[in-house]
Protein backbone atom coordinates (compact mmCIF):
# COMPACT_ATOMS: atom_id res chain seq x y z
CA UNK A 1 0.00 0.00 0.00
CA UNK A 2 1.59 3.33 -1.07
CA UNK A 3 2.28 6.00 1.53
CA UNK A 4 0.57 9.29 2.23
CA UNK A 5 1.41 12.97 1.84
CA UNK A 6 1.32 15.37 4.82
CA UNK A 7 -2.28 16.42 4.26
CA UNK A 8 -3.42 12.84 3.69
CA UNK A 9 -1.83 11.83 6.99
CA UNK A 10 -3.56 14.64 8.87
CA UNK A 11 -6.88 13.64 7.27
CA UNK A 12 -6.33 10.05 8.36
CA UNK A 13 -5.41 11.15 11.90
CA UNK A 14 -8.56 13.29 12.13
CA UNK A 15 -10.98 10.78 10.61
CA UNK A 16 -11.73 7.16 11.13
CA UNK A 17 -9.79 6.21 8.00
CA UNK A 18 -6.59 4.22 8.18
CA UNK A 19 -5.57 5.46 4.78
CA UNK A 20 -6.68 8.45 2.74
CA UNK A 21 -6.02 8.86 -0.97
CA UNK A 22 -6.86 11.26 -3.80
CA UNK A 23 -10.49 10.99 -4.86
CA UNK A 24 -11.70 10.15 -1.35
CA UNK A 25 -14.39 12.14 0.43
CA UNK A 26 -13.52 12.50 4.12
CA UNK A 27 -15.28 13.82 7.20
CA UNK A 28 -12.67 15.06 9.68
CA UNK A 29 -12.41 16.48 13.20
CA UNK A 30 -11.52 20.15 13.28
CA UNK A 31 -8.79 21.03 15.80
CA UNK A 32 -9.32 24.78 15.55
CA UNK A 33 -12.08 26.86 13.92
CA UNK A 34 -11.26 30.56 13.58
CA UNK A 35 -14.11 33.06 13.38
CA UNK A 36 -13.68 36.64 12.14
CA UNK A 37 -15.51 39.95 12.49
CA UNK A 38 -17.00 39.13 9.09
CA UNK A 39 -18.59 36.06 10.73
CA UNK A 40 -20.80 38.43 12.73
CA UNK A 41 -21.97 40.85 10.04
CA UNK A 42 -25.69 41.51 10.45
CA UNK A 43 -26.35 40.65 6.80
CA UNK A 44 -24.53 37.30 7.02
CA UNK A 45 -24.60 35.92 10.55
CA UNK A 46 -26.88 33.25 11.96
CA UNK A 47 -27.70 32.86 15.61
CA UNK A 48 -25.59 29.95 16.90
CA UNK A 49 -27.43 27.94 19.57
CA UNK A 50 -24.62 25.64 20.68
CA UNK A 51 -20.93 25.16 20.02
CA UNK A 52 -19.05 21.86 19.92
CA UNK A 53 -16.12 22.96 22.10
CA UNK A 54 -15.30 26.61 22.91
CA UNK A 55 -11.63 25.67 23.32
CA UNK A 56 -11.52 24.64 19.67
CA UNK A 57 -12.67 28.10 18.59
CA UNK A 58 -10.68 31.32 18.27
CA UNK A 59 -12.33 34.64 17.43
CA UNK A 60 -10.16 37.23 15.69
CA UNK A 61 -11.55 40.54 14.44
CA UNK A 62 -9.47 41.49 11.42
CA UNK A 63 -11.18 42.71 8.28
CA UNK A 64 -12.45 46.05 9.61
CA UNK A 65 -10.40 46.99 12.68
CA UNK A 66 -10.69 49.38 14.39
CA UNK A 67 -14.34 49.50 13.29
CA UNK A 68 -14.40 51.32 9.97
CA UNK A 69 -18.09 52.09 9.91
CA UNK A 70 -21.35 51.46 11.78
CA UNK A 71 -21.85 48.03 10.19
CA UNK A 72 -18.49 46.74 11.34
CA UNK A 73 -18.96 48.33 14.77
CA UNK A 74 -22.28 46.51 15.15
CA UNK A 75 -20.69 43.23 14.02
CA UNK A 76 -17.91 43.69 16.57
CA UNK A 77 -20.44 44.27 19.36
CA UNK A 78 -22.36 41.14 18.35
CA UNK A 79 -19.12 39.14 18.21
CA UNK A 80 -18.04 40.28 21.68
CA UNK A 81 -21.36 39.08 23.03
CA UNK A 82 -20.91 35.73 21.24
CA UNK A 83 -17.46 35.33 22.85
CA UNK A 84 -18.92 36.02 26.31
CA UNK A 85 -21.95 33.79 25.75
CA UNK A 86 -19.89 30.72 24.87
CA UNK A 87 -16.83 31.39 27.03
CA UNK A 88 -14.32 31.54 24.17
CA UNK A 89 -10.87 32.15 25.63
CA UNK A 90 -8.88 32.88 22.51
CA UNK A 91 -10.39 36.22 21.50
CA UNK A 92 -8.50 38.97 19.65
CA UNK A 93 -10.39 42.24 19.79
CA UNK A 94 -9.19 45.72 18.86
CA UNK A 95 -6.16 46.34 21.08
CA UNK A 96 -2.61 45.09 21.62
CA UNK A 97 -3.51 41.53 20.51
CA UNK A 98 -5.23 42.76 17.36
CA UNK A 99 -4.24 41.43 13.99
CA UNK A 100 -5.05 39.61 10.79
CA UNK A 101 -6.34 36.21 11.85
CA UNK A 102 -3.78 34.10 9.96
CA UNK A 103 -0.98 36.23 11.40
CA UNK A 104 -2.38 36.12 14.94
CA UNK A 105 -2.62 32.34 14.61
CA UNK A 106 1.06 32.40 13.57
CA UNK A 107 2.27 34.82 16.28
CA UNK A 108 0.62 32.72 18.97
CA UNK A 109 1.30 29.35 17.30
CA UNK A 110 -2.39 28.43 17.57
CA UNK A 111 -1.82 26.49 14.35
CA UNK A 112 -0.11 23.38 15.71
CA UNK A 113 1.91 21.08 13.45
CA UNK A 114 -0.01 18.00 12.39
CA UNK A 115 -3.43 19.50 13.14
CA UNK A 116 -6.41 20.66 11.11
CA UNK A 117 -7.54 24.29 11.09
CA UNK A 118 -10.40 26.03 9.27
CA UNK A 119 -11.55 29.63 8.99
CA UNK A 120 -13.96 31.45 6.70
CA UNK A 121 -11.23 33.31 4.84
CA UNK A 122 -9.51 32.03 1.73
CA UNK A 123 -5.99 32.74 3.00
CA UNK A 124 -6.36 30.35 5.94
CA UNK A 125 -3.91 28.16 4.01
CA UNK A 126 -1.25 30.53 5.45
CA UNK A 127 -1.11 28.22 8.47
CA UNK A 128 0.18 25.52 6.15
CA UNK A 129 3.59 27.01 7.02
CA UNK A 130 3.09 25.35 10.41
CA UNK A 131 2.66 21.87 8.96
CA UNK A 132 -1.03 22.35 9.53
CA UNK A 133 -3.81 21.20 7.19
CA UNK A 134 -5.40 24.64 7.04
CA UNK A 135 -8.06 25.72 4.63
CA UNK A 136 -10.47 28.53 3.97
CA UNK A 137 -14.06 27.41 4.01
CA UNK A 138 -17.38 29.22 3.58
CA UNK A 139 -19.33 30.97 6.32
CA UNK A 140 -21.95 28.17 6.52
CA UNK A 141 -19.14 25.58 6.60
CA UNK A 142 -17.55 27.44 9.47
CA UNK A 143 -20.80 27.35 11.45
CA UNK A 144 -20.94 23.60 10.85
CA UNK A 145 -17.35 23.24 12.13
CA UNK A 146 -18.07 25.43 15.16
CA UNK A 147 -21.27 23.57 16.07
CA UNK A 148 -20.38 19.98 15.13
CA UNK A 149 -16.58 19.96 15.44
CA UNK A 150 -16.34 18.43 11.97
CA UNK A 151 -15.99 19.36 8.34
CA UNK A 152 -15.56 17.57 5.00
CA UNK A 153 -12.96 17.52 2.26
CA UNK A 154 -12.59 16.02 -1.17
CA UNK A 155 -9.04 14.70 -1.20
CA UNK A 156 -7.03 16.13 -4.07
CA UNK A 157 -3.79 14.87 -5.54
CA UNK A 158 -0.61 16.55 -4.32
CA UNK A 159 2.13 18.45 -6.15
CA UNK A 160 5.42 18.36 -4.27
CA UNK A 161 7.76 21.35 -4.55
CA UNK A 162 11.30 20.37 -3.66
CA UNK A 163 13.11 23.60 -2.79
CA UNK A 164 16.90 23.85 -2.95
CA UNK A 165 19.44 26.68 -2.72
CA UNK A 166 18.64 30.03 -1.12
CA UNK A 167 16.98 33.33 -2.01
CA UNK A 168 19.44 36.08 -3.01
CA UNK A 169 19.55 39.49 -1.33
CA UNK A 170 16.53 41.51 -2.47
CA UNK A 171 14.61 38.42 -3.60
CA UNK A 172 11.83 37.21 -1.35
CA UNK A 173 9.24 34.51 -0.82
CA UNK A 174 6.79 36.63 -2.79
CA UNK A 175 9.04 36.37 -5.84
CA UNK A 176 9.10 32.61 -5.38
CA UNK A 177 5.30 32.59 -5.35
CA UNK A 178 5.18 34.75 -8.51
CA UNK A 179 7.57 32.28 -10.09
CA UNK A 180 5.32 29.31 -9.19
CA UNK A 181 2.12 31.04 -10.36
CA UNK A 182 3.82 32.32 -13.50
CA UNK A 183 5.41 29.00 -14.42
CA UNK A 184 2.83 26.40 -13.45
CA UNK A 185 -0.40 28.41 -13.26
CA UNK A 186 -3.36 27.30 -11.22
CA UNK A 187 -3.44 24.22 -8.97
CA UNK A 188 -7.21 23.77 -8.83
CA UNK A 189 -8.21 20.70 -6.80
CA UNK A 190 -4.57 19.96 -6.00
CA UNK A 191 -2.65 20.20 -2.75
CA UNK A 192 0.82 21.69 -2.77
CA UNK A 193 3.49 20.43 -0.41
CA UNK A 194 6.82 22.21 0.22
CA UNK A 195 10.03 20.65 1.42
CA UNK A 196 13.65 20.11 0.46
CA UNK A 197 17.13 21.22 1.48
CA UNK A 198 16.24 24.94 1.22
CA UNK A 199 13.82 24.69 4.15
CA UNK A 200 16.20 25.41 7.07
CA UNK A 201 17.26 28.63 5.31
CA UNK A 202 13.69 29.81 4.78
CA UNK A 203 12.39 31.88 7.70
CA UNK A 204 9.00 31.10 9.23
CA UNK A 205 7.81 34.45 7.87
CA UNK A 206 8.92 33.48 4.35
CA UNK A 207 7.08 30.15 4.64
CA UNK A 208 3.95 32.02 5.76
CA UNK A 209 4.07 34.25 2.68
CA UNK A 210 4.33 31.22 0.40
CA UNK A 211 1.60 29.26 2.20
CA UNK A 212 -0.79 32.26 2.28
CA UNK A 213 -0.36 32.67 -1.47
CA UNK A 214 -1.42 29.03 -1.92
CA UNK A 215 -4.95 30.43 -2.20
CA UNK A 216 -3.83 32.36 -5.27
CA UNK A 217 -2.57 29.16 -6.84
CA UNK A 218 -6.16 27.99 -6.27
CA UNK A 219 -4.67 25.09 -4.29
CA UNK A 220 -6.69 23.08 -1.79
CA UNK A 221 -3.94 22.99 0.85
CA UNK A 222 -0.43 24.46 0.89
CA UNK A 223 1.59 22.64 3.53
CA UNK A 224 5.22 22.72 4.60
CA UNK A 225 7.23 19.85 5.95
CA UNK A 226 8.13 20.38 9.59
CA UNK A 227 11.73 21.00 10.65
CA UNK A 228 13.58 21.99 13.84
CA UNK A 229 13.21 25.68 13.08
CA UNK A 230 9.42 25.29 12.96
CA UNK A 231 9.16 23.04 15.97
CA UNK A 232 11.30 25.41 18.06
CA UNK A 233 9.17 28.37 16.94
CA UNK A 234 5.96 26.63 18.00
CA UNK A 235 7.32 25.34 21.33
CA UNK A 236 8.44 28.87 22.29
CA UNK A 237 4.89 30.13 21.84
CA UNK A 238 2.47 27.33 22.69
CA UNK A 239 2.84 24.68 25.37
CA UNK A 240 0.17 22.37 23.92
CA UNK A 241 1.37 18.95 22.74
CA UNK A 242 1.48 18.19 19.02
CA UNK A 243 2.70 15.52 16.63
CA UNK A 244 4.26 16.94 13.45
CA UNK A 245 3.43 15.05 10.28
CA UNK A 246 6.08 14.15 7.71
CA UNK A 247 5.19 12.72 4.32
CA UNK A 248 5.74 8.98 4.01
CA UNK A 249 8.88 8.07 2.07
CA UNK A 250 6.68 6.40 -0.52
CA UNK A 251 4.02 9.13 -0.56
CA UNK A 252 2.22 9.37 -3.89
CA UNK A 253 2.57 12.71 -5.68
CA UNK A 254 0.94 13.75 -8.93
CA UNK A 255 4.25 15.44 -9.72
CA UNK A 256 7.48 16.51 -8.00
CA UNK A 257 8.87 19.84 -9.15
CA UNK A 258 12.39 20.98 -8.26
CA UNK A 259 12.88 24.71 -7.68
CA UNK A 260 16.33 26.21 -7.11
CA UNK A 261 15.87 29.37 -5.06
CA UNK A 262 19.20 30.78 -6.28
CA UNK A 263 17.59 31.23 -9.67
CA UNK A 264 14.58 33.23 -8.53
CA UNK A 265 14.63 36.91 -9.55
CA UNK A 266 12.29 39.79 -8.67
CA UNK A 267 9.00 39.40 -10.50
CA UNK A 268 5.82 41.42 -10.81
CA UNK A 269 2.32 40.18 -11.64
CA UNK A 270 0.53 42.42 -14.13
CA UNK A 271 -2.93 43.73 -13.16
CA UNK A 272 -6.06 41.62 -12.70
CA UNK A 273 -4.55 38.12 -12.24
CA UNK A 274 -1.54 36.21 -10.95
CA UNK A 275 -2.08 32.99 -12.88
CA UNK A 276 0.59 32.93 -15.62
CA UNK A 277 0.83 36.69 -15.41
CA UNK A 278 4.33 37.30 -13.95
CA UNK A 279 7.04 39.29 -15.67
CA UNK A 280 10.57 40.25 -14.61
CA UNK A 281 10.52 43.59 -12.83
CA UNK A 282 13.04 44.84 -15.40
CA UNK A 283 10.37 44.45 -18.10
CA UNK A 284 7.99 46.97 -16.56
CA UNK A 285 10.16 49.43 -14.66
CA UNK A 286 8.91 52.96 -15.22
CA UNK A 287 5.15 52.39 -14.87
CA UNK A 288 4.00 55.42 -12.82
CA UNK A 289 2.19 54.67 -9.54
CA UNK A 290 0.01 56.62 -7.14
CA UNK A 291 -0.02 54.08 -4.30
CA UNK A 292 2.39 51.51 -2.92
CA UNK A 293 1.08 49.08 -0.31
CA UNK A 294 2.78 46.52 1.92
CA UNK A 295 0.59 44.48 4.20
CA UNK A 296 -1.92 41.61 4.49
CA UNK A 297 -1.55 38.09 5.86
CA UNK A 298 0.93 37.41 3.07
CA UNK A 299 3.26 40.40 3.39
CA UNK A 300 2.70 42.07 6.76
CA UNK A 301 5.34 40.02 8.57
CA UNK A 302 8.38 41.38 10.42
CA UNK A 303 10.59 40.10 7.58
CA UNK A 304 8.53 42.12 5.12
CA UNK A 305 8.77 45.32 7.17
CA UNK A 306 12.52 44.79 7.64
CA UNK A 307 12.97 44.40 3.89
CA UNK A 308 10.93 47.52 3.15
CA UNK A 309 12.94 49.49 5.72
CA UNK A 310 16.22 48.25 4.23
CA UNK A 311 15.23 49.56 0.80
CA UNK A 312 13.92 52.99 1.88
CA UNK A 313 16.49 53.73 4.61
CA UNK A 314 17.81 57.28 4.20
CA UNK A 315 15.59 57.92 1.17
CA UNK A 316 12.31 59.78 0.58
CA UNK A 317 9.28 58.55 -1.30
CA UNK A 318 8.47 60.31 -4.56
CA UNK A 319 6.03 63.25 -4.50
CA UNK A 320 2.48 62.16 -5.32
CA UNK A 321 2.94 58.61 -4.02
CA UNK A 322 1.01 57.27 -1.04
CA UNK A 323 3.13 54.60 0.63
CA UNK A 324 1.04 52.56 3.07
CA UNK A 325 2.45 49.89 5.33
CA UNK A 326 0.15 47.71 7.42
CA UNK A 327 1.84 45.29 9.86
CA UNK A 328 -0.14 42.04 10.03
CA UNK A 329 -0.52 42.20 13.81
CA UNK A 330 0.04 44.75 16.55
CA UNK A 331 2.71 42.39 17.89
CA UNK A 332 4.56 42.70 14.57
CA UNK A 333 4.03 46.49 14.69
CA UNK A 334 5.56 46.54 18.17
CA UNK A 335 8.53 44.41 17.13
CA UNK A 336 9.05 46.66 14.08
CA UNK A 337 9.08 49.67 16.42
CA UNK A 338 11.73 48.05 18.57
CA UNK A 339 13.88 47.19 15.57
CA UNK A 340 13.57 50.74 14.22
CA UNK A 341 11.80 49.72 11.02
CA UNK A 342 8.77 51.88 11.71
CA UNK A 343 10.91 54.99 12.23
CA UNK A 344 12.83 54.29 9.02
CA UNK A 345 9.62 53.80 7.04
CA UNK A 346 8.01 56.94 8.48
CA UNK A 347 11.11 59.04 7.89
CA UNK A 348 10.92 57.99 4.25
CA UNK A 349 7.31 59.17 4.11
CA UNK A 350 5.33 55.98 4.67
CA UNK A 351 2.06 55.91 6.56
CA UNK A 352 2.19 52.95 8.94
CA UNK A 353 -1.32 51.85 9.85
CA UNK A 354 -2.65 49.62 12.62
CA UNK A 355 -2.94 45.92 11.80
CA UNK A 356 -5.99 45.10 9.68
CA UNK A 357 -6.93 43.34 6.43
CA UNK A 358 -7.81 46.93 5.40
CA UNK A 359 -6.48 47.95 2.00
CA UNK A 360 -5.76 44.41 0.80
CA UNK A 361 -9.44 43.73 0.18
CA UNK A 362 -10.43 47.32 -0.58
CA UNK A 363 -12.08 47.58 2.81
CA UNK A 364 -10.58 50.68 4.37
CA UNK A 365 -7.32 52.58 4.94
CA UNK A 366 -6.05 52.68 1.39
CA UNK A 367 -8.91 52.09 -1.05
CA UNK A 368 -8.01 52.91 -4.68
CA UNK A 369 -9.83 55.51 -6.77
CA UNK A 370 -10.76 55.44 -10.48
CA UNK A 371 -7.88 55.03 -12.90
CA UNK A 372 -5.22 54.83 -10.18
CA UNK A 373 -2.21 52.53 -10.31
CA UNK A 374 -0.99 50.66 -7.25
CA UNK A 375 1.90 48.29 -6.73
CA UNK A 376 1.11 46.00 -3.84
CA UNK A 377 2.75 43.41 -1.67
CA UNK A 378 -0.45 41.80 -0.48
CA UNK A 379 -2.54 38.80 -1.44
CA UNK A 380 -4.54 39.66 -4.53
CA UNK A 381 -4.64 41.88 -7.60
CA UNK A 382 -8.05 40.98 -9.04
CA UNK A 383 -9.84 43.70 -10.97
CA UNK A 384 -11.58 45.91 -8.40
CA UNK A 385 -9.94 44.12 -5.49
CA UNK A 386 -8.59 47.21 -3.75
CA UNK A 387 -11.28 49.67 -4.77
CA UNK A 388 -12.44 51.08 -8.08
CA UNK A 389 -12.57 48.46 -10.88
CA UNK A 390 -10.67 50.79 -13.21
CA UNK A 391 -7.65 50.85 -10.85
CA UNK A 392 -4.62 48.85 -11.99
CA UNK A 393 -2.98 46.65 -9.35
CA UNK A 394 0.52 45.26 -9.89
CA UNK A 395 1.65 42.64 -7.37
CA UNK A 396 5.25 42.34 -6.19
CA UNK A 397 7.54 41.77 -3.23
CA UNK A 398 7.90 44.26 -0.35
CA UNK A 399 11.34 45.25 -1.69
CA UNK A 400 9.96 46.03 -5.14
CA UNK A 401 7.01 47.94 -3.66
CA UNK A 402 9.29 49.98 -1.38
CA UNK A 403 11.66 50.74 -4.26
CA UNK A 404 8.68 51.78 -6.39
CA UNK A 405 7.47 54.16 -3.66
CA UNK A 406 10.88 55.85 -3.71
CA UNK A 407 10.99 56.05 -7.50
CA UNK A 408 7.33 56.99 -8.04
CA UNK A 409 7.19 54.30 -10.69
CA UNK A 410 7.67 50.56 -10.67
CA UNK A 411 11.34 50.04 -9.87
CA UNK A 412 13.83 47.27 -9.19
CA UNK A 413 15.02 47.42 -5.57
CA UNK A 414 18.63 46.82 -6.59
CA UNK A 415 18.42 49.95 -8.77
CA UNK A 416 17.45 51.98 -5.65
CA UNK A 417 19.82 50.40 -3.13
CA UNK A 418 22.74 49.77 -5.44
CA UNK A 419 22.95 46.15 -4.33
CA UNK A 420 23.76 43.75 -7.07
CA UNK A 421 22.23 40.80 -5.24
Amino acid at each position, binding site marked *: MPGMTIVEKIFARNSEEERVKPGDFVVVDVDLAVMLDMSFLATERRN*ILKVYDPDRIAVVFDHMIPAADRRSAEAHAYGRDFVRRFGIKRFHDVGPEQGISHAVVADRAYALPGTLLVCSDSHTCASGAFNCAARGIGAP*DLLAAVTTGKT*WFRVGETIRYELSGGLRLGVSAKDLFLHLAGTWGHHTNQNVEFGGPALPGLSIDARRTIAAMGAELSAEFATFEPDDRLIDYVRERNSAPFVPQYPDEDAQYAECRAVNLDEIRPLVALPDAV*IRNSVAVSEIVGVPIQQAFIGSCANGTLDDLAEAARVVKGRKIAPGVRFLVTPATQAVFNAALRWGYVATLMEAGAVVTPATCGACFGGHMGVLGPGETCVTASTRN*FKGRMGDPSARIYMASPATVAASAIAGRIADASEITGDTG
Partner: protein
Amino acid sequence: MISGKVWKFGDNINTDLMLPGPLLFATEEEQKRAVFSANRPGWVDEVQLGNIIVGGLNYGMGSSRPASRSLRNLGIAALIAESINGLFFRNAVNFGLLALECPGVHAAFHEGQTAEVSLEDFTVRNRDTGALLKAQRVPAVLLDMMLQGGLYPHLEQEGFIEPKVVGGSL
Protein backbone atom coordinates in the same frame (compact mmCIF):
# COMPACT_ATOMS: atom_id res chain seq x y z
CA MET B 1 -33.05 16.58 -16.26
CA ILE B 2 -32.04 20.22 -15.95
CA SER B 3 -31.79 22.28 -19.10
CA GLY B 4 -31.09 25.91 -19.80
CA LYS B 5 -29.65 28.51 -22.11
CA VAL B 6 -25.88 28.83 -21.81
CA TRP B 7 -23.83 31.92 -20.96
CA LYS B 8 -20.11 31.45 -21.49
CA PHE B 9 -17.24 32.73 -19.37
CA GLY B 10 -13.51 32.02 -19.62
CA ASP B 11 -10.73 30.71 -17.39
CA ASN B 12 -9.93 31.94 -13.85
CA ILE B 13 -13.23 33.78 -13.30
CA ASN B 14 -12.73 35.07 -9.77
CA THR B 15 -15.07 35.62 -6.84
CA ASP B 16 -14.54 39.36 -6.80
CA LEU B 17 -16.02 39.62 -10.30
CA MET B 18 -19.15 37.85 -9.04
CA LEU B 19 -19.25 39.65 -5.69
CA PRO B 20 -17.19 42.87 -5.65
CA GLY B 21 -15.58 43.84 -2.33
CA PRO B 22 -17.60 47.02 -1.78
CA LEU B 23 -20.76 44.88 -1.84
CA LEU B 24 -19.62 42.52 0.95
CA PHE B 25 -21.69 44.50 3.43
CA ALA B 26 -24.71 44.89 1.17
CA THR B 27 -27.97 42.96 1.03
CA GLU B 28 -28.31 39.81 -1.08
CA GLU B 29 -30.48 41.77 -3.51
CA GLU B 30 -27.80 44.44 -3.96
CA GLN B 31 -25.09 41.78 -4.29
CA LYS B 32 -27.07 39.97 -6.97
CA ARG B 33 -27.28 43.17 -9.05
CA ALA B 34 -23.46 43.51 -9.03
CA VAL B 35 -22.54 40.12 -10.53
CA PHE B 36 -19.97 40.56 -13.32
CA SER B 37 -20.45 44.35 -13.22
CA ALA B 38 -16.71 44.92 -13.82
CA ASN B 39 -16.16 42.42 -16.63
CA ARG B 40 -19.60 42.21 -18.25
CA PRO B 41 -21.73 45.23 -17.32
CA GLY B 42 -25.45 44.76 -17.96
CA TRP B 43 -25.33 40.96 -17.86
CA VAL B 44 -27.60 40.79 -14.80
CA ASP B 45 -30.35 42.42 -16.88
CA GLU B 46 -30.06 39.79 -19.59
CA VAL B 47 -29.69 36.59 -17.58
CA GLN B 48 -32.92 34.72 -16.88
CA LEU B 49 -34.21 32.21 -14.40
CA GLY B 50 -33.00 28.72 -15.32
CA ASN B 51 -30.02 29.84 -17.40
CA ILE B 52 -26.74 27.92 -17.16
CA ILE B 53 -23.19 29.29 -16.87
CA VAL B 54 -20.43 27.44 -18.71
CA GLY B 55 -16.98 28.37 -17.43
CA GLY B 56 -13.38 27.51 -18.19
CA LEU B 57 -10.57 26.34 -15.93
CA ASN B 58 -10.31 27.32 -12.26
CA TYR B 59 -13.77 28.84 -12.06
CA GLY B 60 -14.38 30.81 -8.86
CA MET B 61 -10.81 31.28 -7.71
CA GLY B 62 -10.37 33.69 -4.85
CA SER B 63 -12.27 34.59 -1.75
CA SER B 64 -14.55 32.79 0.69
CA ARG B 65 -17.26 35.41 0.04
CA PRO B 66 -20.67 33.95 -0.84
CA ALA B 67 -20.39 34.57 -4.60
CA SER B 68 -22.25 31.35 -5.37
CA ARG B 69 -25.27 32.70 -3.50
CA SER B 70 -25.50 35.61 -5.92
CA LEU B 71 -25.58 33.18 -8.86
CA ARG B 72 -28.26 31.15 -7.09
CA ASN B 73 -30.25 34.33 -6.41
CA LEU B 74 -30.05 35.23 -10.11
CA GLY B 75 -31.76 31.90 -10.80
CA ILE B 76 -28.76 30.15 -12.37
CA ALA B 77 -29.80 26.49 -12.72
CA ALA B 78 -26.25 25.15 -12.97
CA LEU B 79 -22.65 26.21 -13.21
CA ILE B 80 -20.63 23.84 -15.36
CA ALA B 81 -16.90 24.48 -15.73
CA GLU B 82 -13.72 22.74 -16.85
CA SER B 83 -12.59 22.92 -13.22
CA ILE B 84 -13.86 24.72 -10.14
CA ASN B 85 -11.87 26.27 -7.29
CA GLY B 86 -12.34 24.16 -4.17
CA LEU B 87 -13.58 27.01 -2.00
CA PHE B 88 -16.09 28.15 -4.60
CA PHE B 89 -17.28 24.54 -4.88
CA ARG B 90 -17.74 24.42 -1.10
CA ASN B 91 -19.79 27.58 -1.23
CA ALA B 92 -21.88 26.13 -4.05
CA VAL B 93 -22.70 23.30 -1.63
CA ASN B 94 -23.15 25.78 1.23
CA PHE B 95 -25.57 28.06 -0.58
CA GLY B 96 -27.36 25.59 -2.83
CA LEU B 97 -25.95 26.17 -6.32
CA LEU B 98 -25.57 23.17 -8.61
CA ALA B 99 -21.89 23.20 -9.65
CA LEU B 100 -20.30 20.54 -11.85
CA GLU B 101 -16.81 20.02 -13.21
CA CYS B 102 -16.93 18.75 -16.78
CA PRO B 103 -13.75 18.57 -18.86
CA GLY B 104 -14.40 19.67 -22.45
CA VAL B 105 -17.52 21.69 -21.64
CA HIS B 106 -16.04 25.05 -22.61
CA ALA B 107 -15.26 24.01 -26.17
CA ALA B 108 -18.51 22.07 -26.52
CA PHE B 109 -20.80 25.08 -26.19
CA HIS B 110 -21.37 28.39 -27.91
CA GLU B 111 -23.20 31.04 -25.96
CA GLY B 112 -26.95 30.80 -26.42
CA GLN B 113 -27.02 27.05 -27.01
CA THR B 114 -28.96 24.84 -24.62
CA ALA B 115 -27.31 22.53 -22.11
CA GLU B 116 -29.03 19.49 -20.64
CA VAL B 117 -27.70 18.11 -17.37
CA SER B 118 -28.50 14.64 -16.10
CA LEU B 119 -27.70 14.06 -12.44
CA GLU B 120 -28.49 10.37 -12.73
CA ASP B 121 -25.41 9.61 -14.79
CA PHE B 122 -23.61 13.00 -14.46
CA THR B 123 -23.69 13.89 -18.13
CA VAL B 124 -23.93 17.22 -19.92
CA ARG B 125 -25.43 17.33 -23.42
CA ASN B 126 -25.46 20.13 -25.95
CA ARG B 127 -29.05 19.99 -27.24
CA ASP B 128 -28.09 21.95 -30.36
CA THR B 129 -25.13 19.83 -31.44
CA GLY B 130 -25.85 16.57 -29.65
CA ALA B 131 -22.38 16.53 -28.07
CA LEU B 132 -22.41 14.45 -24.89
CA LEU B 133 -19.87 14.97 -22.08
CA LYS B 134 -19.13 13.20 -18.84
CA ALA B 135 -19.11 15.38 -15.71
CA GLN B 136 -17.29 14.59 -12.46
CA ARG B 137 -19.51 12.78 -10.00
CA VAL B 138 -20.40 14.78 -6.88
CA PRO B 139 -20.72 12.84 -3.58
CA ALA B 140 -24.42 12.29 -2.83
CA VAL B 141 -24.37 14.18 0.46
CA LEU B 142 -22.97 17.28 -1.26
CA LEU B 143 -25.29 17.02 -4.26
CA ASP B 144 -28.29 16.89 -1.93
CA MET B 145 -27.21 20.14 -0.30
CA MET B 146 -26.65 21.81 -3.69
CA LEU B 147 -30.17 20.89 -4.72
CA GLN B 148 -31.92 21.49 -1.42
CA GLY B 149 -30.95 25.01 -0.40
CA GLY B 150 -27.48 24.42 1.00
CA LEU B 151 -26.12 23.85 4.47
CA TYR B 152 -28.12 26.27 6.64
CA PRO B 153 -31.45 24.36 6.47
CA HIS B 154 -29.55 21.28 7.67
CA LEU B 155 -27.95 23.16 10.60
CA GLU B 156 -31.38 24.57 11.49
CA GLN B 157 -32.94 21.11 11.47
CA GLU B 158 -30.24 19.80 13.78
CA GLY B 159 -30.85 22.66 16.22
CA PHE B 160 -27.38 24.17 15.80
CA ILE B 161 -28.57 27.55 14.56
CA GLU B 162 -31.77 29.48 15.00
CA PRO B 163 -34.18 29.07 12.07
CA LYS B 164 -34.09 32.67 10.98
CA VAL B 165 -32.76 34.25 7.83
CA VAL B 166 -30.30 36.87 9.10
CA GLY B 167 -29.37 38.98 12.08
CA GLY B 168 -29.76 36.87 15.21
CA SER B 169 -30.57 38.91 18.30
CA LEU B 170 -27.86 40.20 20.60
